């Protein structure tokens, strides 16, 4: 199984540009999450979804948007990129049952210059 797949692995954006980070999982998990990790820091929750068509804000949602049209896919959209969005982005999924262990993708390293 591929698990959680994120693309791209690396990206450099100019200030004001937009992009979409892709995340797909093949484990039929209902729950999906987007986190960002700044250098030497922990993970901060951006958005999460408990199923197709349902999304909700996490701790740091400003500057981002998400959609969940299918169980498998949970893309994260950056509009008008800013240097403060330079970070490593992780997508994760879980089954949603009690004991919600997260399965993480390999991450996307984004630089906004």
């Amino acid at each position, binding site marked *: 199984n591929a698990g959680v797949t994120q693309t791209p692995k690396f990206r450099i954006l100019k200030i004001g540009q937009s992009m979409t980070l892709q995340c797909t999982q093949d484990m039929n998990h209902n*729950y999906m*999450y987007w*986190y960002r990790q700044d250098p*030497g*820091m*922990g*993970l*901060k*929750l951006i958005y*999460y979804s*408990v199923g197709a068509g349902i999304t*909700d804000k*996490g*701790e740091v949602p400003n500057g981002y948007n998400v959609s969940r049209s299918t169980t498998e896919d949970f893309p994260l959209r950056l509009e008008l990129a800013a240097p403060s969005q330079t970070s490593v982005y*992780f997508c*994760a999924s879980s089954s949603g049952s*009690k*004991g*919600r*262990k*997260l*399965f*993480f*993708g*390999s*991450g996307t390293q984004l630089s906004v210059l």
Partner: protein
Amino acid sequence: ELKVEQNPLFLSMQEGKNYTIYCNYSTTSDRLYWYRQDPGKSLESLFVLLSNGAVKQEGRLMASLDTKARLSTLHITAAVHDLSATYFCAVDEDNDMRFGAGTRLTVKP
């Protein structure tokens, strides 16, 4: 607001020594997780603790959960170099999964 605090944030220890990492959290959740992250890599799950008094062990690592004290510990026994990594605890409340800042562990010969 759900808050998760880990300490210490940095830990340098010698091989063969024991140490404990602490994770305090602010809610009544009984679901706590430990993850490991190697430099430049993603996170992998270590332990899932789902009730007060839960204890899980894997090799030289043992995790426990005290929901009354809102505290989880990750105990390292006879550390070896391969355990060098950053360890995160995470607390699950409703659908919000919050992480601590991480403990960067370095095990020296």
